[in-house]
């Protein structure tokens, strides 16, 4: 074998380790469980179902929220009527978080798992629970 | 020379638009002026090379043996196992095209197959077909094609249109060196006895007589004695040249053209003057009377066969180290191959300048020093008395020869010398010098006459840069450190830049060197009258 064969093999091994790094990390360190979000709906009279079907919301909630904020802030239109004729207030705080009142298990669980950090909560207070049960600011 | 009819402005009308049809279907026409004559059987026989035959590339029938493809594939397989360069360079080219307009032959001809990438693809396409799975399955789509006689002819045509100058390699993001590929291509062609006369005849000469020109020992001695006499006449200092003498400190090896050809000869006079003046303890060798090595243009084996004599002669003569003269491909061999092929040179000693005491650590293993390193060191230490005004009739620019440039990086030493032995030195445009230097267009055994059109085309970028300095600074001489340059640049410049002379670094050193006991010089080494300084002219009047 050429004199630099070992050097090259060493480099190759480094490369192979690097490209399979996630595999080693997962095997050696284990992975945290990836749980589905908890809907955590509390019973709100007249609000038994979400404004859109779950599948849509799961994938596109950010678009809906974006649309809502544009409509509310810029057009001053707050009322939202669902396909099946139910009326809602276009409001993250007063509509979404009213039902989905456990932000940690509803919003944060997925966002954390997917390393998404929406800037909603820079201004909107959300519904994080603290030890004393009061709403807390981040 | 049919191309002789073409005026420079006609030859410079170059079409860079590639043809609409792709390049994969070979269609090579051996147009007069673009190719070199085939090797004659005698020289091949003398060197024990395979398949000698009377043959010309323009023949329809190349008299190939029936198993010629097998020979080629075997040859490829063997080389793929021997040269990592070859294997890696066959595999990793991404065809980015950065090399395309770096080749002087492409710039001068517009022939797209002179783009280094395509020159290599000629070989790669066959490699893919025979040696890679993708090529076997996907064929043309991955750039693979079958070897046939047309492909072989194309190889011959284009591998003898590459001067192995390595300019493209400087720009390649993966360092792919077309010289390596051309060398492989030529080795493969040699397996079928397909070589050119201009390479093989010097090879045979060199093998027999020790030098490419076939000068026998007495002729060699005559010519050095003649040079010594002429130098004595010019300087008034009696000069003697030691040849084949044992017990000297240094063996001096230089290309054989220096003894006979012009303007090489004036550089030889420069060496002799310098060695005499500093009292160097040295000897020439008639057996190692050639530094150059046309084996480089033939095959690795032939490099080794010709190169062996230098160390052998150094050992026989019992010198301490070796000094090498101005030459291009000679230095490529000495720098990159000699020690590996014919070393170790452990019978020699660490090169050390007897005058300055400088130890040439950069030659610690080969024990061979370049004359410009040696002279630059002398000048640096004030060991030479120089009168730069004796070169005032010259306005010089410097051509970095490809091999010392891109194989060694020998840039500053000659410049340092020139700036101190003359007053009028100018650089060519920066994209055409140092590591970006352009080839003379005639290197690697292509400096013959039958391919003159191609030489003129390939030399266009170099000549054009020279023209630029001539026009902007009035330069009248192109200095170079390579025997092939000195031989091939004069006709090139005569065509593109009439009025330019060609000279060597040590010719200028010889002009400027004030020797002990010399008579007042009124001519340079060429016998041309010196320009008197204005003040002296006034005084004389």
């Amino acid at each position, binding site marked *: 074998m050429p004199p630099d064969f070992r050097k090259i093999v060493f480099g190759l091994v480094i490369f192979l380790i690097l490209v399979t790094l996630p595999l080693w990390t997962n095997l050696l360190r284990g992975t945290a469980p990836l749980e589905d979000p908890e809907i955590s709906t509390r019973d709100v009279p007249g609000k038994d179902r979400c404004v859109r079907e779950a599948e849509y919301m799961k994938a596109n909630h950010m678009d809906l929220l974006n649309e809502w904020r544009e409509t509310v802030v810029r057009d001053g239109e707050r009322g939202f009527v669902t396909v099946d004729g139910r009326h809602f207030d276009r409001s993250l705080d007063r509509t979404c978080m009213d039902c989905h009142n456990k932000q940690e298990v509803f919003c944060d669980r997925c966002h954390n798992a997917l390393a998404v950090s929406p800037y909603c909560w820079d201004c909107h207070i959300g519904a994080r629970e603290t030890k004393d049960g009061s709403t807390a600011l981040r | 020379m049919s191309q002789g009819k073409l005026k420079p402005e006609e030859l410079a009308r170059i079409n860079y638009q590639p043809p609409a049809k792709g390049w994969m279907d070979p269609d090579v026409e051996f147009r007069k002026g673009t190719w070199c004559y085939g090797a004659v059987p005698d020289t091949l026989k003398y060197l024990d090379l395979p398949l000698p035959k009377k043959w010309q590339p323009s023949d329809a029938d190349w008299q190939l043996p029936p198993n010629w493809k097998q020979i080629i594939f075997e040859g490829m397989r063997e080389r793929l196992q021997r040269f990592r360069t070859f294997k890696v360079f066959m595999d990793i080219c991404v065809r980015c095209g950065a090399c395309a307009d770096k080749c002087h032959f492409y710039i001068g001809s517009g022939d797209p197959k002179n783009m280094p990438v395509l020159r290599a693809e000629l070989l790669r396409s066959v490699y893919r077909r025979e040696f890679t799975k993708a090529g076997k399955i996907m064929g043309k789509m991955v750039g693979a094609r079958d070897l046939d006689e047309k492909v072989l002819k194309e190889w011959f045509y284009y591998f003898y249109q590459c001067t192995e100058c390595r300019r493209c390699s400087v720009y390649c993001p993966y360092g792919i060196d077309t010289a390596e590929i051309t060398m492989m291509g030529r080795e493969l062609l040699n397996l079928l006895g397909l070589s050119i006369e201009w390479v093989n005849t010097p090879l045979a000469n060199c093998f027999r007589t020790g030098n490419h020109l076939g000068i026998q020992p007495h002729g060699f001695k005559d010519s050095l004695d003649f040079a010594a006499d002429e130098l004595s006449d010019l300087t008034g200092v009696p000069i003697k040249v030691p040849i084949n003498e044992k017990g000297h400190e240094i063996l001096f090896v230089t290309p054989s053209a220096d003894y006979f050809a012009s303007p090489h000869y004036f550089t030889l006079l420069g060496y002799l003057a310098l060695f005499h003046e500093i009292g160097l303890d040295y000897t020439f060798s008639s057996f190692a009377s050639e530094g150059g090595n046309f084996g480089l243009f033939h095959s690795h084996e032939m490099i080794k066969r010709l190169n062996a004599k230098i160390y052998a002669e150094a050992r026989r003569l019992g010198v301490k180290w070796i000094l090498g003269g101005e030459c291009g491909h000679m230095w490529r061999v000495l720098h990159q191959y000699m020690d590996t092929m014919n070393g170790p040179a452990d019978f020699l000693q660490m090169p050390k300048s007897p005058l300055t005491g400088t130890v040439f650590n950069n030659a610690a293993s080969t024990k061979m020093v370049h004359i410009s390193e040696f002279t630059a060191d002398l000048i640096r230490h004030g060991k030479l008395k120089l009168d730069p005004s004796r070169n005032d009739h010259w306005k010089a620019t410097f051509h970095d020869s490809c091999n010392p440039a891109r194989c060694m990086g020998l840039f500053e030493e000659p410049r340092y010398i020139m700036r101190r032995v003359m007053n009028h030195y*100018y*650089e*060519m*445009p*920066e994209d055409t010098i140092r590591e970006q230097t352009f080839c003379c267009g005639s290197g690697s055994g292509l400096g013959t006459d039958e391919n003159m059109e191609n030489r003129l085309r390939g030399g266009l970028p170099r000549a054009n840069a020279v023209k*630029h*300095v001539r026009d*902007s*600074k009035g330069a009248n001489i192109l200095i170079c450190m390579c025997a092939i340059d000195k031989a091939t640049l004069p006709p090139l410049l005569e065509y593109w830049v009439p009025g330019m002379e060609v000279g060597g670094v040590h010719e200028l050193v010889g002009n400027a060197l004030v020797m002990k006991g010399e008579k007042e010089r009124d001519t340079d080494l060429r016998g041309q009258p010196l320009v008197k300084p204005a003040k002296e002219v006034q005084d004389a009047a």
Partner: protein
Amino acid sequence: MLEKALYGDRKYWTWLAALGAVGLMGVLFYFYQFANGLTVTGLSRDVTWGFYIAQFTFLVGVAASAVMVVLPYYLHHYKAFGKMAILGEFLAISAVLMCMLFIFADMGQPFRIMNMFLHPTLHSMMFWDTIALSGYLVLNVVISRATLSAERKGLPPAGWVKPLIYLSIPWAVSIHTVTAFLYAGLAARPFWMTAILAPRFLASAFASGPSLLILLALILRRVANYDVGKEAIQKLAVIVAYAMSVNVFFVLMEIFTAAYSNIPEHLLHFEYLFFGLEGKSALVPWMWTSEILAVLTLILLINPKTRAKEGLLGLACAMVFVAIWIDKGMGMVVTGFVPSTMGLVNEYFPTLPEIGITLGIYALGALLVSLLYKIALGVRRSLV
């Protein structure tokens, strides 16, 4: 051509490293500001724009001043500016980039800076200023690259460059005019609401920029052995002399209008600048320094004998630069806020992080100028 910036001696690399270090310090201060908000600056409810915006305004002038060499060279074929034109263009590029960095540093929400382009607002002068500056940057980059690379190749510049050069001339005037419009159109701020603001900006720009260019040319002659030529420097000195005269004249016009009309809203700002209000007088010594320097420079520059002496000229140029920097980089912006729209007199003092970021941006600008000049000089030197 970029590679020209990569070959230099130890002095060159030390200089770059020093500028880089100051730049890095600025970046670190910026991280601090980024994390804590603009509260780390000396800005407040009443003085909402300060050092950053003032430096921006000043540097727009420096950028615009390139036209003072470009116009004579390209439009009037004034050959003496041959070695100066590229210096002017490269200075303009660096100045515009510094302007952009200052704006960025001043943003409350820097990640939303693209909103400028996502929601273009034709009635906002700030939008137009963004367009003007970005356009000017692009023009200068394209023009200087095209001309320098043609020069390197020994060929005349491509045909399409000429119209761009002609376009760049009014464009240079426009960047400082539109920058003046940022201020001059505000009913809320009588100090700025003057029709003479844009001309005044231009006059001060054509004094400060060329004086910086003269200083740079003098420095380059010393440190880089690059001589733009005596004639070029003298011609530029005349330009500085005229521009500075006009600038001082305009300032006097402003003071007359405010003082003679005696409208408090106008007068109070000048009072604050030169005498202080309600015992607050941070800018007073600076402004008097600026005015005294202005008078001295006029004496040195208008007198042909003193102007011809390059030592004195250099001094005068440094003084012009400082005088105008105080005027625009300190007085101009802040005074618009003192007294405030409510009549409150609250002063502004830049804080350490603010000064750190400002120095950092200037250092990065100087770094860029050094690199670009190195390229330009390298290309010129390589020509045979």
